[in-house]
């Protein structure tokens, strides 16, 4: 059954914000996923805190609107408890690469089976435009009026290094391309991440720059080394799937093909096992 994917909740993103591109790409991706057998009923979305998180209110999907930086941890708990679910965690650059970087890296390292979509706008927009982990040197915001003095993280390089099994970059201005990336990422078995170039029209309006620089990759790189080289390219901005590989997923390595919630032990069996442990 396909639901209306909009909720009708009042949208409070700035007009023209890159977040609309991600919202619209999701609205295109969900029916496509449904065609691939991934039902809306079993699709769960998780959000952190930041402008990106408002997508929880705007998508009529089952969701957990969590706290800053912890979305990937929440998503992994869901998948571990019920591996039948398809889980997409949305995060901002401050959220996924700053406050919650450890969860992002460990999710990639252990190949937890969910999709992380990072609304990467290079600024803390909801708190009025401070520099973020991906802001360029010289980026001016209210906490560093003379400009950022820290070089930015390269999230794709970082995630490729720790072993992410699906790494992509999307652009909020190329909605159909982003929708196809979302479909591929959710279908990927294992950890998948899409770093989405998302201009913030008020605090970091990079639409013009991105429109001139993005170039779609024809196919993923054949090796991690090649993918890392591509992720460091600055003359143009490659978008698409940088790297994709099949690796055993975390929950199956932990407990095999079992499902803790669906195949929960019965009370009778539990009591029987415990009785053996407590009897003299």
């Amino acid at each position, binding site marked *: 059954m396909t639901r209306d994917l909009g909720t009708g909740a009042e949208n409070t993103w700035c007009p023209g914000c890159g977040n609309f591109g991600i919202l619209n790409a999701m609205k295109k991706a969900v029916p496509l996923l449904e065609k691939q057998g991934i039902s809306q009923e079993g699709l769960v979305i998780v959000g952190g805190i930041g402008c990106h998180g408002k997508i*929880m209110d705007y998508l009529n999907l089952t969701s957990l609107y969590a706290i800053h930086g*912890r979305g990937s941890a929440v998503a*992994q708990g869901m998948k571990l408890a019920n591996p039948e679910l398809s889980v997409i965690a949305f995060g901002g650059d401050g959220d996924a690469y700053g406050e919650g970087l*450890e*969860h992002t890296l460990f999710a990639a390292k252990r190949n937890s089976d969910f999709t992380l979509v990072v609304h990467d706008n290079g600024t803390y927009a909801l708190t009025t435009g401070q520099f973020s982990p991906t802001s360029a040197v010289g980026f001016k915001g209210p906490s560093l009026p003379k400009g950022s003095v820290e070089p930015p993280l390269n999230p794709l390089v970082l995630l490729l290094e720790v072993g992410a099994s699906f790494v992509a970059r999307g652009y909020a201005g190329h909605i159909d391309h982003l929708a196809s990336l979302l479909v591929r990422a959710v279908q990927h078995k294992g950890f998948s991440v899409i770093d989405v170039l998302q201009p913030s029209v008020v605090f970091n309006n990079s639409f013009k720059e991105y429109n001139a620089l993005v170039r779609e990759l024809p196919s993923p790189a054949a090796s991690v080394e090649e993918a890392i080289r591509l992720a460091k390219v600055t003359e143009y901005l490659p978008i698409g799937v940088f790297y994709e590989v099949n690796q055993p997923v975390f929950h199956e390595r932990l407990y095999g093909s079992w499902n*803790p919630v669906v*195949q929960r032990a019965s009370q009778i069996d539990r009591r029987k096992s415990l009785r053996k442990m407590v009897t003299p």
Partner: protein
Amino acid sequence: MKDVFTYLIGGKAGQGIMKAGEVAGNLFSMLKRYSFQVNEYPSLIRGGHNFAIVSSCVKPVFSFYRDADVIVALDRRSYEIHKPHLKPRGLMVVNEGDGEGLGLPIVAESRKYQRSDLIQGVAGVAVLAAFLGVPEQRFQEFLKEAYPKGAEENQAYAQTMYGLTKAKTSPRVVSQGSKPMRNIVGNDAIAMGAAAAGLDCYFSYPMTPTTGILHFFASNADVLRLAVMQPENELAVANMAIGAAFTGARSMVGTSGGGFCLMEEAFSLAGMIEAPVLFVLGQRRGPSTGGPTYTEQADLFFALTPGQGEFPRLVASPGSIEEAFSLAGAMLNLVWRFQTPGILLTEKHLAESSMSVDLDPDHVPWVNPVLYAGSEPYERYRQTPDGISPLAFPPSSQVIKWNSYEHKPNGWTTEDPAEFTSMHEKRRRKQESLVSFLRTQKTVNTYGDGETVLFTFGSTTLSVREAMEYSDLKVQLVQPIFLGPLPVWELEQYRGRRAFTIEQNSTGQLAMLLHDKVGMQITGSILKYDGRPFEPTELAHQIQEVLR
């Protein structure tokens, strides 16, 4: 006076001291005697000074006793430290040349074997068996089961030690009880209680004193059918447990004060989104890193107030290992019934001590939350008279929205003042429902009878009970099992009585709580804050002093 037999084994970390203590406890179980075992060890893997004490009796025993009938000192330091605590007719066994008493070639003999350090604990057990007059054949069979690793070496080494002890001492035959015993450590009791209530997922980052719960679940995950995970830190632990609960998994986490500091933001999240998660908070000596392997009860106030904002919460602390088992199950039920976070507050002294207990998994109820019946469109935070909104889990035909922002009944974010107010009121009603429910439950334990009331909580209950029995004290001991909400309705009756608190902290937090919540005038407090549990003979003396 109670006829208690006490055994002490001391040495360096890496000499198998704690294992020997556990096995000594099981040896008493074989003799159908009750026992209580406590370990004291520093935060290191090799060296230092470790010891285990096992006190045993034909009647239930709730504490270790300091003065020992048998002391086995595996090194000189242990001999020096414990020498003053040998009973007049007691047996002191030392490694040859390390002190006065029965000198055995414990170290020299152990060099013949591969696991020469770890095997030395076996000597301690062999000495005890010989001294208690356990026939050698029976002892060897017992030993094979107690130390399955390297059984042949253990057997040969034990034979030598048993033989030497038997030749040089006259046995002290102790009376035997009437029924077989099972010794269980506090952490395992907590784990089994939660499992009996239907636990599905356990998340934990290792931290003394609750690491034992993680190890118990990890080694029993397959037989109990549980998912067990050690994430990257306590932030991940708590948030993963919330994610698991969202899918309907009964989830629990375990930590100590430092780890719980990191879980606070998730604790508040659980309060807001109404996520049922049980947090086991095992107290150890703080502040900060403190004395990581020692006991304390200084996190009572911390456990009562974590997380920003106002939301319903539960805090309960078990006063015995049986209660640790039943309360872990009851708390898992409560957090699901009321969809809010709860804390099972314990401390090193309970978590890592073991005693002879009867646990019955059949008496632990299975978690049974209020579920969405499907008659109207689903609203996660539906307004109800008792504040409890029915739960639904994905996959579902309904849209389920949990939200850390203040929310409308359907889970969308709101900033509307009327909705802010009504959602606070919904959570308040849930708190009131929780209190009404607790009024129908056992929330306070009392022991003994007398004019003066002694209040305590957590594992200090064990120490006070033993002290009361030891000295036949005419006092009434009152132990609130629930500390938040505090069962004021049960405690009011003690107002006006002469009352003292007994606590393992330096400020008397329980006394302050009873004053604030119940209006109790506490005459004084017996406080111990050296990281070591109360010893019953000393505590009995202290109680008699204040009663005067």
